[in-house]
């Protein structure tokens, strides 16, 4: 990095913090703390913790990108499974729509993981892509979500695929249908691809496909998206796991922190008004995004610093 690098850029860089080398106990505790923070934010914003985990592990702790993505995928399984357990029971999640779209997301996820593990994509480029996806995430999150109520049309493809259902609204069950299952699946392939490539849930694209393309009710699309993230992450996580990119002394503390964090985040979520928080976090996400892109451009992901 040049001498005239702004101060705030220096603060979070492992080169200057020297966080890449420390004793086991500090390392574990620091990871648990970071992951806890990521879990709380992930639960409050509905974006999942991966958005914090990957930048923190790569840039602050100097962990190579593939190891960071592997750890992020495992932690994503933790947060999505934890939340899904609650939503499924409440009857919001549409398991048929989830299962149908998982064909697309798992396919995309495998392609993403294969691309990153088999082909030598420069890690700095991955950092830039990560930043770009985050920018998009921040923009889409800040927008107001549409809430559709599509009629169930007998004989349509969505009908034949059983992509309809009911969900509780003020204690009563309301029926809804959906549209465009093929186009929705195609968007889902790219969501899965990003998940395998970057280790984040691709949640924004999932919600985009289900809200805007398939026209599902907001509650159904967000909970079903969350339900699918676990299986999508598994499809690519297996490839990283088998390849040896999951290192217990990195992944296990992150797993502990993020499960606790998202548990606490979900409890807090039930009690507070999140609109202001969401806006604050959207800004935070945008800052992280720009920071990732900056580090990719100057080549910090590939730089070793002993």
């Amino acid at each position, binding site marked *: 990095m040049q001498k005239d690098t702004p101060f705030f850029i220096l603060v979070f860089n492992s080169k200057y913090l020297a966080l890449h080398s420390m004793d086991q106990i500090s390392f574990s505790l620091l990871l648990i703390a970071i992951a806890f923070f990521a879990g709380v934010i992930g639960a409050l914003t509905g974006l999942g913790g991966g958005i914090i985990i990957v930048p923190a592990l790569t840039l602050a702790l100097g962990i190579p990108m593939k190891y960071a993505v592997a750890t992020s995928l495992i932690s994503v399984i933790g947060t999505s499974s*934890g939340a*899904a357990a609650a939503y499924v*029971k409440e009857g919001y999640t549409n398991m048929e729509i989830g299962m149908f779209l998982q064909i697309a997301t798992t396919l995309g996820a*495998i392609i993403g993981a294969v691309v990153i593990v088999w082909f030598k994509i420069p890690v700095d480029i991955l950092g830039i892509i990560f930043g770009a996806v985050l920018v998009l995430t921040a923009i889409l999150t800040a927008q107001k979500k549409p809430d559709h109520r599509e009629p169930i049309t007998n004989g349509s493809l969505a009908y034949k695929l059983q992509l309809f259902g009911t969900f509780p609204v003020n204690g009563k069950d309301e029926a809804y249908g959906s549209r465009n299952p093929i186009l929705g699946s195609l968007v889902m392939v790219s969501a899965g691809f990003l998940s395998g490539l970057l280790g984040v849930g691709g949640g924004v694209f999932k919600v985009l496909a289900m809200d805007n393309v398939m026209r599902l009710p907001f509650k159904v699309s967000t909970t079903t998206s969350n339900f699918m993230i676990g299986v999508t992450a598994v499809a690519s996580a297996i490839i990283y796991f088998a*390849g040896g990119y999951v290192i217990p002394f990195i992944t296990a503390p992150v797993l502990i922190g993020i499960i606790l964090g998202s548990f606490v985040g979900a409890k807090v979520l039930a009690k507070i008004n999140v609109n202001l928080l969401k806006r604050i976090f959207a800004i935070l996400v945008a800052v992280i995004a720009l920071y990732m892109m900056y580090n990719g451009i100057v080549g910090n992901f590939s730089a070793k610093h002993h």
Partner: protein
Amino acid sequence: MEANKQKKDLELIISNTLRIGVWSAFWIALLGVVMLIFANGALKINTQNLPEIPQKFSFEELWKGLMNFDAHQIAMLGVFLLLITPLIRVIFALIAYTKQKNIMYVWITFIVLLIIGISIWIGAVH
């Protein structure tokens, strides 16, 4: 009404699978990390020393480590449990759709499992 009850049962089974999977993974990983800290808390680690191409995961090593109460492998078991939780969930869904005689979703679930199977195969051979 019968179909509705089956749907509720499936929701409950899947919800419980997820919950049990996550929390058992959590406690085992915690045990592993605590042991790791006590065993070599002062050990210096350097994230820059992680190899470009790591050693592949092996069940044999996991098993051997568990038999010896090795902290690393206990933590690894926690991670592994979390990894298979969504997989078990899909298998349960397959069983449920078979019971409901929902042939279309038996196939769709089967395809999802097949894709995950391909992922396991890619991970194993490469």
